[in-house]
């Protein structure tokens, strides 16, 4: 890549911070032991794993339970839903998820539906915001689990998690899970104070490595295992420890938590600059909540042009963005998130997400805004439905 390359897809994945890679390197080289082995090589790896677990626990305010290591946010989400539903089916078979969950929750809930669980969807308003009183209406005596993401991956709206957890606990015996994959590193989290029973995270969204994540489970919440085998994780999640990535995740969450206010302030300013420039383009709109949104997220629709085409023009101009969740590319249907928000049909296929992060500069924002304008004009000239 010799030409200009601007990365505006931090919500899909973020690069490793240098300090994180540095923290990992010893575990990719001399500290290679199996953390479950009692000998010196094993103990060196185990020390790294347990220090990282402490970093996670501290960062999440999760002292009232255990942080289990998983292979990522998707596994954590699957485990939370399937593990809790299977273990607690005799208490009830009703689950509530928001209408705008990531596929890791949505498809998992749909699998549970096939198995005989009933799933209700908590609706969102036009800004992708859920409302606690709507949750109250959906709670039933047989509701065992409520899962609402802390922040949405497509449009960035930050949900009122504390209130949702409160409504859940005051009106039912259900436990409250939140997919905080997009939130960690962008939103302050204090799991115990917020009334969270389970929380999923994924390291690569906060400048840690890919393929590693965690599920926090509050004391007293009991799940079936998703992955059986050896005695790791108190017998609840088997598999040889990936010490290098675990150490990287620990370092990444520590840095993310230390820097949270500065990071959010800096990225929010850049994002708002991008938003105000882009909204000068005719027939464009910002999707999601104007203020209760992830620092880096700017999701736009442009009448008359298709999101993936726009993505490609920008890619050719060296700007990496996303026309929805990267994970769902390959799917042809309009995003269930935009549909649930009741987006005007003309905007449904015309959406593009820019997500800014650590490495974004003001120059990047200016260049991107200009390229977006050019690209939109170019594609509108090709459009049969815009003139």
């Amino acid at each position, binding site marked *: 890549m010799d030409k200009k390359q601007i990365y505006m897809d931090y919500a899909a994945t973020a690069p490793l911070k240098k300090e994180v890679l540095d923290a990992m390197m010893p575990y990719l080289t001399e500290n290679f032991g199996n953390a479950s082995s009692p000998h010196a090589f094993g103990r060196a790896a185990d020390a790294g794993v347990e220090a990282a677990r402490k970093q996670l626990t501290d960062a999440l305010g999760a002292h009232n339970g255990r942080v289990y290591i998983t292979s990522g946010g998707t596994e954590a989400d699957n485990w939370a839903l399937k593990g809790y539903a299977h273990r607690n089916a005799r208490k009830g078979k009703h689950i509530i998820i928001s209408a705008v969950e990531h596929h890791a929750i949505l498809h998992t809930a749909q699998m549970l539906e096939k198995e005989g669980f009933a799933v209700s969807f908590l609706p969102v308003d036009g800004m992708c915001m859920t409302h606690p009183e709507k949750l109250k209406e959906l709670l039933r005596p047989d509701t065992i689990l409520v899962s609402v993401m802390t922040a949405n991956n497509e449009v960035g709206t930050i949900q009122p998690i504390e209130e949702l957890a409160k409504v859940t606990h005051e009106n039912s015996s259900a436990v409250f899970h939140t997919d905080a994959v997009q939130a960690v590193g962008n939103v302050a989290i204090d799991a115990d104070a917020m009334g969270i029973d389970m929380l999923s995270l994924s390291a690569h969204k906060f400048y840690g490595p890919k393929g590693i994540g965690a599920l926090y489970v509050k004391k007293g919440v009991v799940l079936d295992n998703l992955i059986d085998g050896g005695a790791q994780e108190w017998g609840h999640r088997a598999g040889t420890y990936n010490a290098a990535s675990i150490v990287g995740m620990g370092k990444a969450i520590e840095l993310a938590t230390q820097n949270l206010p500065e990071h959010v302030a800096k990225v929010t300013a850049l994002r708002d600059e991008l938003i105000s420039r882009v909204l000068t383009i005719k027939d464009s709109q910002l999707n999601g909540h104007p203020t209760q949104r992830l620092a880096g997220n700017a999701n736009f629709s442009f009448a008359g042009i298709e999101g993936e085409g726009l993505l490609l023009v920008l890619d050719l101009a060296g700007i990496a963005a996303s026309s929805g969740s990267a994970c769902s590319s390959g799917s*042809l249907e309009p995003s269930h998130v935009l549909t649930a928000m009741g987006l005007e049909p003309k905007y449904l296929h015309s959406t593009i997400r820019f997500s800014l992060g650590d490495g974004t500069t003001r120059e990047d924002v200016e260049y991107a805004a200009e390229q977006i304008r050019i690209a939109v004009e170019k594609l509108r000239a090709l459009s049969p439905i815009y003139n």
Partner: protein
Amino acid sequence: MYNEKVIEHFTNPRNVGEIENPDGTGMITSESCGDMMKLTIKIEDGRIVDAKFKTFGCGAAIASSSAATEMIKGMTLEEAEKFTNKRVLEELGGLPDVKIHCSMLAEDALHAALKDYREHHQK
């Protein structure tokens, strides 16, 4: 993801626009992904002498539209009737599996335009 030829067509699409007073017009919306293509053609002496398109869609849809308009110009109506997306795929040197359906847009729009020509413009 896309090969160079696809990128080239996408970046510099041929025959963009609408023919004034066309002999046939086809407007198609893909049911599977919502992409849209409007094709206008000019016909003289049983041949397509001009074709222009406008497309709302992804890179594959726009490149297919561009390639198809180039290919059909000069075709007799009989040839055009037999035109399929396979020809577009060949011309473009292939598309990713998930994008093959996008090349159908051009085939469908052409056949819609030919139908329109037969119904409204043929004396």
